[in-house]
């Protein structure tokens, strides 16, 4: 209850975004697609809001995990030559 009142005051008297709005911006932030204005609102919110901050961290760590941990398969040695060969044959 006290938290709700606190949030209400923050949003309505100080122009801060809600947790709901923050979570809507979460993926835009993670993917670098937020506008500068959205980014500023988001940063301001997570500076004061631990749950949203933690959710953002999780989102970022999953993205990072996908980017860095998936095994990259090596391109078969003959693939490029085979493509070039086929192009030459059809030219």
């Amino acid at each position, binding site marked *: 209850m006290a938290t709700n009142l606190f949030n209400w005051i923050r949003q309505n008297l100080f122009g801060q975004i809600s947790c709901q709005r923050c979570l809507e911006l979460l993926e835009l932030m993670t993917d670098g697609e937020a506008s500068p204005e959205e980014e500023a609102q988001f940063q301001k919110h997570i500076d004061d809001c631990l749950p949203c901050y933690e959710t953002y961290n999780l989102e970022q760590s999953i993205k990072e995990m996908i*980017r860095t*941990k998936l095994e990259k398969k090596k391109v078969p040695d003959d693939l490029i030559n085979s493509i070039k060969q*086929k*192009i030459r044959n059809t030219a």
Partner: protein
Amino acid sequence: MSVEKVKQNYSSREKDRIFEQEFLPHIGSMYNFAYRLTFDEDDAKDLVQETYLKAFRFLNSFQQGTNAKAWLFRILKNSFINDFRKKSKQPAKVDYQEVETFYNSEDVDVSMTTDLRVETVQHMIGDEVSNALNALAVDFRTVIILCDLEGFTYEEMSKILDIPIGTVRSRLHRARNLLKEKLQAYAKSMGYNK
């Protein structure tokens, strides 16, 4: 992609240069994307080869200065749908009904009821990540690969997949929640997250 509107008329020397310098450098990403779609090395090879042959044949539809990688990925994705998906046993379509309305509804459901923790994610190894990703339906797997692995923007993804940006976002959101569920289930089975 709007490239179809403008036909170029490249000389054969220019064609060779574009092919060598702008197309071939992406072969690693292309092959890995193809493999994650087909789960088969020979199919992936065929798919990449077919994509490059099409790219060469329709090179006049490619506009220099635009994103070659996105252009190639779009051709590969279309080849996969038209030629490979038919042959494979993959379910043809995911039912998006509940998904696509996500960003259109006023009440955006942003709830993420996951107990997944950052430390758990950080301790995952490649095989675990791979298994979780591969367990997703191909359309969900695809958006995660394009966005998180290959770093395409929403706009580029929208062109590669021929869907509106709102749909890219809702599909990506759904895909990420599903991935979290898989990771969470895995973490639980391994006794993490106590």
